[in-house]
């Protein structure tokens, strides 16, 4: 029967690690492999395993400003992880698959639009690359990303903050208690994409029951209203009760039930570092849920049973849910000028810390408030690597659906910045024509990426 299968790319990258004892290392998906192989799930007729493929440099340039260039920030493993997600998406769009699971390493949801190095174990954002790929190659416009990692998906949020066609919902452990320290309910998107970013911080120690309260009362209703053409799950598994980095109490079954309800087109693995006690079980349960199979027999050895929740914390979650439902329901009635001011440009300053590479970045991001399109974006970024002079770059991004005025202005901004010696590199990302430029001030040289040529 057609349209019945669940696609899987399993790419454990057994020869890639951040460092030998880093949580993001070769061993991470080892026991998941053992569990999946031993269960024989790959023999089930509803599941089909695919060989991974590499994303192109161009696919990355469509999303990121990698400094100085894409090749210096990504390894082949990164290209394979991102490429595997796009490979499954192709098969889903073509109707070969009903859904898919990119069970891949390395993860990506902390990677922001500008990339000076690795932050939160991420260099490039697999889900964001997938979104832009879907738009460019399949003309899919409205996309929702639901991030179920214990950490706030701050990279994904950053990339789509001004994008009205991408709904980004992240629930995670309260940023006051965990990396990266962001993801509060008041972060709702820029003036052109208000309430297209929804953050649900959860107090530490919450279990499945309250998690599903949030899913049923906030996430699913919002998705129903938004009517995305494609749903992506940033499937981080560090909300598990055994995870060494998170402090939540979710179980494999809780994750599987969430997957069944969300019914995503594609789940892409993010974090999850309880490599023995959680990952083999959570990954198996998610895969079974995607394939429409019974996952009630998947039970981790230390399964705690249902636990009583702290009523005070539950009440806190209920208040957040209520507040965000209000925001969502009134999203078209709010006075945006009151929130964002009345200038032609909305701008914000950002301080970004790269915890893995110890880089301090200062950004000034400006987005044109355009009545005809989502508006072009410029970013002035200065990164302090802790040695020598900080590097400073200027980035211009033209959205997929840009209007003519924004496009012209954006090219002018790029030309202008090319003449300013303080910028070592100046970038232009034109998603409307799929052309990406980079100018190297020292060498007075411009690179162009016009998409994959024959043989690439």
């Amino acid at each position, binding site marked *: 029967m057609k349209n019945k299968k669940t696609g899987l790319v399993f790419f454990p990258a*057994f020869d890639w690690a951040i460092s030998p*004892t880093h949580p993001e*290392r070769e061993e991470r998906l080892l026991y998941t492999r053992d569990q999946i192989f031993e269960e024989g799930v790959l023999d089930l007729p509803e599941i089909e395993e695919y060989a991974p493929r590499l994303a192109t440099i161009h696919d990355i340039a469509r999303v990121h400003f990698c400094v100085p260039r894409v090749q210096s920030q990504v*390894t082949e493993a990164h290209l394979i992880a991102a490429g595997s997600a796009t490979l499954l998406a192709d098969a889903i769009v073509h109707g070969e698959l009903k859904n898919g699971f990119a069970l891949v390493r390395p993860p990506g949801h902390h990677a922001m639009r500008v990339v000076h190095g690795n932050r939160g174990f991420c260099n490039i954002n697999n889900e964001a690359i997938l979104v832009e790929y879907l738009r460019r190659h399949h003309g899919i416009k409205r996309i929702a990303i639901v991030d179920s990692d214990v950490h706030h998906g701050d990279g994904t949020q950053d990339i789509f903050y001004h994008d009205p066609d991408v709904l980004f919902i992240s629930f995670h452990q309260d940023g006051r208690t965990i990396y990266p320290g962001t993801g509060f309910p008041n972060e709702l998107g820029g003036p052109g994409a208000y309430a297209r970013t929804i953050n649900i911080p959860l107090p530490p120690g919450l279990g499945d029951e309250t998690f599903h309260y949030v899913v049923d009362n906030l996430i699913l209703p919002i998705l129903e209203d938004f009517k995305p053409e494609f749903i992506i799950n940033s499937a981080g598994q560090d909300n598990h009760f055994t995870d060494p980095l998170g402090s939540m109490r979710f179980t494999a079954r809780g994750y599987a039930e969430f997957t069944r309800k969300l019914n995503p087109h594609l789940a892409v693995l993010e974090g999850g570092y309880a490599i023995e006690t959680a990952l083999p079980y959570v990954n198996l349960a998610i895969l079974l849920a995607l394939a429409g199979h019974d996952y009630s*027999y998947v039970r981790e050895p230390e399964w705690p049973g249902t636990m009583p929740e702290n009523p005070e914390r539950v009440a806190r979650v209920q208040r957040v849910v209520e507040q965000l439902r209000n925001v969502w329901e009134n999203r078209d009635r709010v006075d945006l000028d009151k929130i964002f001011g009345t200038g032609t440009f909305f701008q914000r300053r950002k301080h970004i810390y790269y915890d893995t590479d110890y880089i301090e970045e200062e950004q000034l991001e400006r987005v044109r408030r355009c009545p005809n399109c989502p508006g072009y974006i410029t970013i002035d970024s200065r990164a302090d690597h802790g040695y020598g002079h900080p590097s400073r770059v200027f980035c211009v991004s033209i959205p997929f659906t840009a209007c003519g005025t924004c496009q012209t202005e954006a090219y002018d901004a790029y030309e202008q910045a090319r003449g300013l010696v303080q910028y070592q590199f100046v970038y232009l990302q034109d998603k409307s024509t799929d052309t990406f430029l980079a100018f190297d001030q020292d060498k007075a040289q411009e690179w162009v990426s016009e998409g994959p040529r024959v043989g690439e």
Partner: protein
Amino acid sequence: MYIGIDVGGTCTDAVLLDRGLVRAMAKVPTREDLLSSLLEALDEIMKGVEGELVERVVFSTTVITNLIAEKKYDPVGLILMPGPGLSPSLYRFPTDTHIIQGAIDYRGREIIPLRLTEVDQAAAELAARGYRKVAVVGKFSCRNHRHEKEVAARVLWNYPDWHVELGHQVAGQLNFPRRVVSTYLTCATREKYQFFVRSVQEAISQRGIKGAIFILKADGGTLPLESSLEVPVETIFSGPAASTLGVQALTPPGETAVVDIGGTTTDLALILSGQPLLASRGARVDDMLTHVRALAVKSVPVGGDSVVERVGKDIIIYSERLGAPYCLGGPLPTPTDALRVLGLTRLGDADRAREAMQMLGAPLGLSVAEVASRVTTRVIETITREIEAMFSRWEQEPAYRVWEVLQKKKVRPSTVVGVGGGAAGFVSQIAARLGCYPVIPPYAPVANAIGAAVARPTLQVTLRADTEQGFYIILEEGYQGKITERSFNEENALELAKEWLCKRAARHGLEDCVEGLEVTRREVFNMVRDWVTVGRLIDVTVQTRRGILYHVGAGGTSE
């Protein structure tokens, strides 16, 4: 001198090789009594040759295949310990299945203890239903076989005369449902296979042959007949392996598609970089998935004797055979008749072949030649498409490491080698469509027997060490041992695996094969807890050299 015998469904083929040259060959019909066909073929090639001169006899046989296909075995009950994971309702094993408590995890740690009362109950229920054979299999039993052993001991305590087969002794690889099926089939066929082996040994010694007797396995390796008693199911599907090895022996090395066109099926195989391609997972036996390692062979349901019929305006080739081709006195038109009309074969009667094409084409207003070329084109298209699909399936096989992904390159065949009855008429056109050279090797009709004759004995040993828990496992032996050295590393693991392979070789009388060992898998993972390395998981697989002993027709030069 070497002898190869392939006991196929319709014919039993045999060759006698003398230092790489074919000295005699025979083709006799396969009868119900396999042994008599085997002896007849043997006698034909041994005319005037002293039995003492024969160093080895290798045969491939359908005996196990037939036992399984015809379900000619005693019923086998299952006692399983699947533990948590997939819902047991997804397992559809063709027999009484009892699921009991008890679970081992991926590192071989007990996570749920056994309950012996449940074992007693399961065994009593099986006994009540007349079972005397039982397969006991636990999830992750290849990482720790304690539960399986305890269950077996308990069952045998209650029923000392039962035949109990344990999962970890049958298959060491991961995949519980496949291990269940492999264990079930092993349990089911062991006794009958034993009887067969004994009579073969008897017959061959009656002919004065004192050389070693081997049997071909589905993966193209051979085992001493005596040792094959341990793994009867692995002798299944040795036919396609035999013809693939035959092609390997009869043609120069390269990227080759092997097309073995028989009466009703065409078997396809690939030889890549000079070695037959192994299937990435175990073989499907009687529609059940097993752990049996096999060459990647695709059986296409079309052959020289397939029935061809006109349906409306279409001419259709069916997958069944209803007797011989029309030109050979059969009832209905077949591709062989089409070949006869086109002058691509000399088999049978030309007039009857034309008559067959006439029957098909007249209502459509097609000439005899037009019908014939339409029929052959259909066959050629089907086979060509399947060869292409085999290559892309191979390319699409998953990879779990960066370097594996990067090194996958597009490989296409450079030659198409045809063997089997129908090969001559089709191979050149198949090759033309694939843009490669057609080859019909000398001795093509007995390539399978040649393949059997020159197949190498194969043995492999997989060692898995867990230095944190301080033990290692030899998968093929179902052995669990302690690691005492604190500094046990990859090199120690490799040495230990080699020692075990030598031991294993000695046990099978294959001491000579241990030269030129190949390391086919090498995996080391550090286990880190709280940023400190607490141990290593080391997996190594060593095996004897795969492939053929020498090329045939080239004067016996060694590979």
